């Protein structure tokens, strides 16, 4: 198992270097000069332009800038944002817990609802239940997030007034962040009602962010289950008289879960993409919106640093998925 783990880890190094090159190049390929954008309609004199370019180091050859970036990465310094002038790493870790908290809630919601729905649809294959679940999944999968988020806000926050409109917690509560996770910090603060407020603020954004992964997971679970339910060992299990619950829950599900876990792992990318829009609608202070704003401002340091950190996290999650995979299915280890 250790060799398997180390092998996977070794593959990550060239991948990480590749990602650093892509992250560095991507933002520079886009047309648009960050120094020019800083001044907007106000035209800068050529001297001032040259001075700023030099100050920001953009006048140096690209490869020098890249190795400077890579050198920084190795020493844990991703540079400063051109816009806020603050260290990229600081900004990332200030905002990341908000995205992580929301993403975790969303993925838990998606798994807790998506997997059982998929199993039900598979077991009741062809029934009206199966068809409605798969129909709903298709709708969920194709839902434009922005529209969906606003619709929920108008309905639940505007008309019914069940949930707050946006933000992470009511303005009533104020405590310095300890972990950055509002659910944890609100409990630690000891302020009455803070935790409840944090939960109520999480409901709508979690639903919105969970919608697409939920649909994908439900569909994947269904098809994996269907495949497994037709296998010989399931027939054997059934024929030796095991109760259906045990056949489905133990024999079928454990094997069907392998592709499902892969799918869940792949949803990390979908979550990050979804977080960009969800965070904007719900005024959620996370990294999704931070990255988008930075792309528009051509804030090179933030985009390359942020991409690298996000890619690093996705790689880490994939590594975990691989390891989980190995635990569930011993054949893969060898």
């Amino acid at each position, binding site marked *: 198992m250790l060799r398997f783990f180390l092998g996977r880890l070794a593959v990550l190094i060239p991948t990480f270097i590749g990602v650093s090159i892509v992250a560095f190049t991507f933002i520079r390929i886009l047309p648009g000069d960050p120094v020019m954008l800083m001044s907007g309609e106000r035209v800068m004199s050529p001297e001032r332009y040259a001075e700023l370019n030099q100050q920001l180091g953009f006048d140096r050859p690209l490869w020098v800038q890249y190795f400077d970036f890579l050198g920084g990465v190795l020493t844990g310094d991703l540079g400063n944002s051109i816009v806020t002038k603050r260290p990229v790493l600081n900004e990332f870790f200030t905002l990341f817990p908000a995205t992580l908290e929301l993403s975790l809630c969303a993925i838990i919601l998606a798994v807790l609802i998506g997997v059982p729905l998929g199993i039900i649809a598979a077991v009741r294959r062809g029934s009206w239940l199966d068809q409605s679940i798969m129909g709903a999944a298709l709708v969920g999968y194709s839902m434009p997030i922005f529209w969906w988020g606003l619709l929920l806000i108008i309905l639940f*926050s505007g008309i019914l007034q069940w949930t707050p409109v946006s933000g992470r917690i009511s*303005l009533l509560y104020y405590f310095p962040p300890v972990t950055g996770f509002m659910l944890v910090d609100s409990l630690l603060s000891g302020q009455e009602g803070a935790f409840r407020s944090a939960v109520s603020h999480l409901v709508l954004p979690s639903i919105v962010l969970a919608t697409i992964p939920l649909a994908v997971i439900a569909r994947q679970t269904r098809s994996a289950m269907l495949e497994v339910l037709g296998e010989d060992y399931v027939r054997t299990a059934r024929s030796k008289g095991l109760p259906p619950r045990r056949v489905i829950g133990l024999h079928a599900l454990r094997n069907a879960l392998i592709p499902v876990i892969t799918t869940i792992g792949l949803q990390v990318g979908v979550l990050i993409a979804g977080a960009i829009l969800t965070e904007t609608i719900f005024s959620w202070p996370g990294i999704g919106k931070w990255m988008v704003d930075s792309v528009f401002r051509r804030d090179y340091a933030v985009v390359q640093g942020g991409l690298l950190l996000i890619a690093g996290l996705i790689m880490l999650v994939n590594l975990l998925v691989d390891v989980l995979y190995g635990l569930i299915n011993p054949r893969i280890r060898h």
Partner: protein
Amino acid sequence: MTSKLTFAAILMAATAISGTAAAKTFVYCSEGSPEGFDPGLYTAGTTFDAAAHTVYNRLLEFKPGTTETVPGLAESWDISEDGLEYTFHLRPGVKFQTTDFFTPTRDLNADDVLFSFERQWQDDHPWHQYVAGASWEYFNGMGFPDLIESIEKVDDMTVRFTLKRREAPFLANLAMPFSSIVSREYADQLEAAGNEQLMNQQPLGTGPFEFVAYQTDAVIRYRAHEDFWNGEQAIDDLVFSITPDASVRYQKLQAGECHLMPYPNAADVEAMKSHPDLKVMEQEGLNVAYLAYNTTQAPFDNVQVRKALNMAINKEAIVDAVFQGQATPAKNPIPPTMWSYNEEIEDDPYDPEAARQMLEEAGVTDLSMKIWAMPVSRPYMLNARRAAELIQSDFAEIGVDVEIVSYEWAEYLDRSRAEDRDGAVMLGWTGDNGDPDNFLHTLLGCDAVGGNNRAQWCNEEFEDLVVQAKQVTDQEERAELYRQAQEVFKQEAPWATLVHSLSIVPMRKEVEGFVQSPLGDFAFEGVDLVE
């Protein structure tokens, strides 16, 4: 829990914290996060609202609701005969804020003023690069390094600026956010502790509100400054609840989660006006959207042609289709809220038939041209592509064939400056300091050709007027010169002036005392909540 209850709870909590019976918290749903809290470092209005107009003051201030300057931290000033020396007498007894992170031991004095400007000006000043990449963009952009000869402390309460040339807009520039006065004593404390960067994270000034805390991208909290020199505030706490999406801001306003919001969607404004709990303020913004011909290229070097094209544009249609009525057609290059705006001028009438005739008389047939449309939405032009399409169809009516072109924004700004550029460029401007010079000379002066002057238009008569207006200090005299300059502009038509967009501020009915700023600022000094 309903939102109304939430709101009541906020009030109760505020009461409990401050210990007074009627503590009031004012919540502003701001549109974005500040880049930082040192106004000298940045150029965005969002940052100025969060830092400059809350925490800080300047030597001069803009009189609320106008672009006129009035005394601020400087009680009075003298200008020397030659117009080069400005001597400012500081207001005595101005207190800096006392907060968890700083306790002042003295009142405002000349050292603070010197420090505030020298750090931006002198390359070798210890605070010049206190955050990496500090570029003091406005200080440079407004030309201060080339303008200022010296800044001296005459005595503890007197500061003298000596300029290299006469510059009437100088006073207005001192009322701009980048000229905010920071505390020298606070800076010394930070420097001693090696914590210089906190100047940009925990601001401290003399303004109406003191900084309490900022949760990145979420909430900024302020408290009223008890010893504020310009009087006590009616509210106890001020909160900026950062809400980037305009539809969501509107929902929060309706739910009572905030009291006031900036930048509504044009499509929501009618509903806001008829909402029982809301009221809406509106005013022409300090901006203009225009179409700049390249006056050096045929046939646009012919004023007849430019006039004819101007008469073919249906500006009302742009106001309706692009702004849903939230704009006014523009006749002058400066907006109506700006002093010296020339009311007398008559706009070229919308008259396609006459326009067609004028083109024929000018000997121009089968004209095909390019119109440049910006790729981004700006406050002065929400949808440039749509406006360009409307102009395209207007021009088709008089037999002019239009191709619409666009580039990535930075590319667009760069390419549109080129002196040999073809066609007409759509662009606009939002004023910096409320001074007409900031429109007329900046955008249409001879030395801006190849830069901000997208029409590449250098007219001797116009140039003389605006340069002269820069050098006299008497405001009425200046206004007269600018009014004449606007007449020359109208006769010569280097631009088609398109629209001035309206600035719309929706708020809850209980909000009192908010004054809409023609400069587009959101400042909350003097606001109150009255049930």
